[in-house]
């Protein structure tokens, strides 16, 4: 059975190779090839999953070693895969949601002449993402890690003729590279500490080293996670990444790739468990991002950017949970999976809306769309209820558990702080999602003809797009409940992530009740602000906070002034230095010799008698020197 693991990666990789190298002759069939291979990978995943279910919990992990990758004295990196319950969860999520989004894209990208290439990139992404989650060592994980970064770069910048898309793609890659730096330093630290970077040996020998080293490794892993999962302070790329086609936003920037940081932290659980300081850092990053993303989400009028803020915030929840240790890992992953369903569904819904509205993204120009696109409305609405944590739906089960766990972080003040932040986040989530919902689907129509007189004619999207949305809506509704039945999800992951029951500082029913109250408050406030009176088509000036939030809380401005401008000045002055100083020293030496020889040339005046004088003088000096030497 374990020989099938490689197939998971091989199928989409083959697709990418065929589609990208195949050339124009595959334009007609390319999208089918891509979709087929994604589904094939999903089928392999399901096959492996059923096989895994048939075994008892302790013997489910599979291992497949392919070949020795970088054999150097003292340094062994192998291409080997490990498929345990954690990886399996991701494999199913990635291939499942991935296949759905391939299908959706067939319709969404129908009119794009470069559709074949789009599918090639999507397949490349799937391969890299699968490699990331089934690698059995950190270095191979790193390959997948950067591979998804590449796919993300290519897909964000898919419409390269738009300068904004090209810039956003570059920005995403660069910010991620900063995170990647963290990952590579972490791997180097592991190598010098443990002599290896395979998951098994590293995580088993955590006890053999000091806490200082582990904290350092943990912080570096956190840096990596911050980059990939758009956590503060490396979150700035995610909003811009919405320049990519919407299926990409759904798959990469909502359901799968951005959650890789959560995977990394959960996978390295043993390291974090032994380094409480690193854990605290993780929790702080998660809590800050959770609020940060939520505030940004409240102010955006671009539907995709509002959802991007929400993604950031939800991943903040997962990171927070992952930082809590064994009480949180399972819930982090559970929220990750349910989030994968409802956020992908929301993005696909947004894509469907844009498809019907001539690619308009400004929610102020929507309004009342429920009449025109009923299927989109219903699926989007179910996703909405799931994300705000409406009791009974997926988000409720997973988010509520995270809030509980956050309250259980510590007996004292920490539990209250982080629990409170998580609770507050739930309220803001309800607020901004209700805002999105109302502005898009309720109220009066607010769209107008554009300059060339084209008025949008909102219509329901084709079947290839609505079916994936419906499937995801089912997931948004039922997945959470299913996972929580008998704590089945927690038990499934327990052999990998360990599990301890959280003991919150206040009782569990009280937490659940206050969560529901907070979300009703948030949703009610949004209704009061946006549902009761018509939404203005041009955005009002807004408060200071609103204006800052529209600009991503000024982080881009900070980056621009400090990093971009500063960097430009630095490089410019260095170019100058290279030309004048470094080169100047050499040219100066040359000029010095030139000047000296110019002077010396004047001695050569052509008068025979002056030559004679120098000869006599020279001879006299020589003789004098000889005599002196004799005398001494």
């Amino acid at each position, binding site marked *: 059975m374990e020989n099938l693991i490689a197939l998971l990666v091989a199928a989409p990789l083959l697709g990418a190779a065929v589609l990208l190298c195949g050339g124009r002759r595959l334009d007609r069939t390319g999208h089918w090839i891509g979709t087929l291979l994604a589904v094939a990978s999903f089928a392999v995943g399901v096959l492996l999953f059923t096989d895994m279910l048939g075994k008892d919990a302790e013997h489910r992990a599979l291992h497949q070693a392919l070949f020795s990758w970088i054999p150097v004295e003292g340094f062994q990196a192998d291409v080997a895969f490990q498929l345990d319950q954690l990886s399996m969860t991701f494999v199913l999520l990635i291939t499942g949601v991935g296949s759905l989004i391939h299908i959706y894209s067939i319709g969404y990208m129908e009119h794009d002449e470069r559709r074949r290439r789009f599918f090639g990139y999507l397949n490349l992404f799937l391969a890299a993402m699968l490699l990331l989650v089934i690698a059995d060592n950190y270095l191979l994980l790193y390959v997948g890690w950067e591979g998804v970064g590449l796919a993300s770069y290519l897909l964000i910048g898919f419409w390269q003729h738009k300068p904004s898309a090209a810039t956003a793609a570059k920005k995403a890659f660069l910010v991620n590279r900063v995170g990647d730096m963290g990952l590579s330093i972490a791997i180097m630290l592991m190598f010098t500490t443990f002599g290896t970077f395979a998951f098994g040996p590293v995580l088993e020998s955590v006890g053999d080293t000091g806490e200082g080293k582990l904290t350092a490794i943990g912080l570096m892993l956190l840096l990596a996670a911050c980059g990939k999962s758009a956590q503060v302070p490396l979150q700035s790329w995610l909003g811009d990444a919405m320049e990519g086609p919407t299926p990409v936003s759904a798959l990469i920037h909502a359901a799968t790739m951005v959650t890789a940081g959560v995977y990394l932290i959960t996978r390295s659980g043993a390291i974090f468990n032994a380094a409480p300081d690193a854990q605290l850092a993780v929790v702080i990053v998660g809590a800050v991002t959770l609020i940060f993303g939520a505030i940004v989400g409240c102010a955006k009028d671009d539907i995709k950017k509002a959802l991007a803020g929400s993604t950031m915030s939800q991943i903040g929840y997962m990171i927070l949970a992952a930082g809590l240790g064994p009480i949180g890992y399972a819930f982090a992953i559970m929220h990750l999976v349910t989030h994968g369903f409802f956020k992908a569904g929301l993005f696909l819904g947004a894509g469907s809306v844009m498809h019907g509205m001539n690619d308009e993204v400004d929610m102020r120009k929507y309004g009342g769309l429920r009449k025109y696109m009923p299927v989109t409305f219903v699926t989007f609405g179910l996703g909405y209820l799931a994300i705000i944590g409406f009791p009974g739906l997926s988000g409720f089960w997973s988010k509520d558990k995270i809030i509980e766990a956050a309250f259980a972080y510590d007996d004292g003040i920490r539990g209250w702080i982080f629990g409170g932040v998580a609770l507050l986040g739930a309220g803001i989530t309800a607020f901004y999602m209700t805002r999105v919902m109302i502005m898009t689907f309720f109220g009066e129509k607010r769209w107008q003809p554009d300059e060339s007189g084209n008025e949008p004619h909102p219509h329901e999207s084709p079947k290839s797009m609505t079916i994936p949305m419906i499937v995801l809506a089912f997931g948004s509704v039922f997945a959470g409940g299913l996972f929580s039945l008998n704590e089945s999800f927690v038990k499934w992951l327990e052999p990998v992530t360990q599990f301890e029951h959280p003991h919150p500082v206040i009782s569990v029913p009280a937490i659940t009740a206050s969560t529901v109250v907070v979300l009703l408050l948030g949703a009610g406030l949004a209704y009061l602000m946006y549902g009761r009176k018509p939404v203005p088509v041009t955005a009002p000036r807004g408060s200071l906070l609103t204006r800052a939030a529209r600009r991503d809380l000024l982080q881009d401005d900070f980056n621009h002034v400090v990093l971009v401008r500063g960097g430009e000045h630095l490089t410019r002055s260095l170019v100058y230095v290279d030309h004048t100083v470094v080169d100047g020293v050499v040219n100066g030496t040359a000029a010095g010799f030139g000047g000296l020889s110019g002077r010396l040339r004047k001695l*050569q*005046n*052509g*008068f*025979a*008698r002056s*030559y*004679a*004088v120098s000869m*006599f003088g020279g001879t006299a000096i020589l003789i004098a020197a000889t005599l002196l030497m004799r005398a001494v």
Partner: protein
Amino acid sequence: MSPVNYLYLAALLFAIGATGVLIRRNAIVVFMCIELMLNACNLTLVAFSRMHGNLDGQIIAFFTMVVAAAEVVVGLAIIVSLFRSRHSASVDDASLMKL
């Protein structure tokens, strides 16, 4: 008479010759001064030969004479052709040795 006196004489002759080379402009005179210096050298060679009691110095003196004769032939020819083209025998007029 001590052979050392010959050395004093040679030094004197050499000094006269050297001064002549340095201060006179007429090429013929410069030339004669050079001959004077050569002969001063010959004199020292012969004197040393006498002092040390072997003949090496005298043999070299013969060589010097031959070389001096050959030099005179070439040198005078150059001076004559210079004089023909420039109507002057001053060495400072012939400052063509630089680029």
